């Protein structure tokens, strides 16, 4: 089997974010996160719950492409109201796409520019404010740049560690598990919960990441390489989860 592509390394890095999560709802946005969540469920996190993106909890793991209708095995009903209930109960881990992130993990996908009259209206707040103070959140950035990793986000949709700390008791369920970009993996395992470069993907140098990041990343010692997929993980991604290679469109080889 040929060596892992960058997209495949990213998918495994997302999958690892769900390690140890147990029987909770894994929600993912974007192709690579959808692959990562499925991969986790098929390997080391079999208890994860997942939906078809509409209102059905699926017992099985259909591929990310195409209409899964024919092969879906329903194990439950999860309309939006029940999703909100799960958010507030904390039994969920979401991977959201970030348009902007700052050093404490404050997140924006609502709009670019001032909120009263934005230069670009994006998704809006959606569920990010509630998600981030209720259950674990991870972020996916398919194209790492200083436009995404910024000194200050234009609008805070997802709450970062500095703001969560300021909430006191209200922030006790806040956790940003990790950030995965096409260049590396980032966590907040620092004394003041600043973003740290946890690993660089194979073929990426630390300097590349620093140059493409608009704030000072915490670096602790020698930065390791992101782990590469096992042969079994590669087989699952290539043959079962994403046979149509949608991942290559999100992260070109």
């Amino acid at each position, binding site marked *: 089997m040929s060596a892992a592509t960058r997209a495949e390394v990213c998918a495994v890095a997302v999958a690892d974010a769900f390690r140890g999560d147990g029987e909770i709802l894994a929600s993912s946005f974007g192709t690579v996160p959808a692959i990562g969540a499925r991969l986790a469920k098929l390997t080391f996190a079999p208890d994860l719950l997942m939906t078809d993106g*509409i*209102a*059905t909890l699926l017992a099985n793991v259909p591929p990310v492409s195409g209409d899964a209708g024919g092969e879906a095995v329903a194990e439950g*009903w999860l*309309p*939006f*109201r029940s999703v*909100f209930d799960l*958010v*507030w109960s904390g039994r969920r881990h979401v991977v959201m796409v970030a348009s902007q992130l700052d050093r404490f993990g404050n997140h924006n996908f*609502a*709009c670019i520019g001032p*909120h*009263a*009259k*934005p*230069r*670009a*209206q*994006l*998704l*809006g*707040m*959606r*569920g*990010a*404010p*509630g998600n*981030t*103070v*209720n259950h674990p959140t991870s972020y996916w950035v398919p194209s790492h740049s200083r436009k995404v990793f910024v000194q200050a986000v234009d*609008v*805070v*949709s*997802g*709450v970062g560690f500095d*703001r*969560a700390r*300021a*909430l*006191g*008791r*209200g*922030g006790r*369920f*806040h956790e940003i598990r990790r950030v995965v970009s096409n260049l590396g993996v980032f966590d907040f395992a620092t004394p003041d919960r600043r973003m740290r470069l946890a690993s660089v993907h194979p073929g990426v140098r630390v300097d590349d990441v620093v140059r493409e990041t608009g704030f000072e990343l915490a670096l602790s010692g020698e930065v390791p390489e992101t782990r590469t997929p096992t042969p079994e993980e590669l087989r699952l991604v290539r043959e079962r989860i994403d046979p149509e290679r949608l991942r290559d469109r999100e992260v070109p080889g």
Partner: protein
Amino acid sequence: MDKRTTAAEVVAELRDGMTLGIGGWGSRRKPMALVREILRSPLRDLTIVSYGGPDVGLLCAAGKLSKLVYGFVSLDSIPLEPHFRAAREAGRIEAVELDEGMLQWGLYAAACRLPFLPTRAGLGSDVMAINPWLRSVRSPYEDGEELVAMPALELDAALVHMNRADARGNAQYLGPDLYFDDLFCMAAKRRFVSCEKIVPTEDFPKGGSLHTLRIHRSMVDGVIETPGGAHFTECPPDYPRDEGFQREYAAAAKDPESWAAFQLRYLSGDESDYQRAVRERRPAAGGRG
């Protein structure tokens, strides 16, 4: 009581400056025939509360909407609603942007006749900064936790679209999700349900189980039969989203000339003219519908 009425009669009840709640979610089971009737009316200066889709986009494009209470506005298969986007980027509408769960809580508070409901959603985010009128509340119990006091979202009228209804205002959804349509009805002074088909009450079990009868007649003031009334949003199992039409709608936002042509073709007549224009629409080359 026979609550059957028409879209025109419903819209004649509405007034400038009213707060309207619109059911559905994104580009899913939206009461589009009622929205189109608003477009034909002289109504203006509306406040809309919605899990937004093309209902919001059309009202923005027509200049009917001055204030929007929302968590997102999306066409689902097209993530960003272009007409809403244009209105926001021009600064033409007042944007009360909330976490989508806060929206549910506001409707539920209104439904329960409570001034507010506490929630953790919104804390720490800029929802609080961009809506400086939002207040927090401290738990009166030992924990003393500070929470957002999401105020009731009281509606002058609610508009929702269901698959089936009877003449008395009982209504049935047959798709996978009710969304928050029951809460929209319960939060409103006047409640209007459009539907694909009005059926005899005893026919409800032919469509679906007892669990699909979530909107009953004490929650409804008027029932309007509008076949295709959710078009071009999806209304399963009656019909899927008309993706080709939605693409045409979204593309028409790119300049005033395209939008004028779209309006002339689809929105210049009554609902039967609209439905005829949709039927006569030639499928885009290479695309489905």
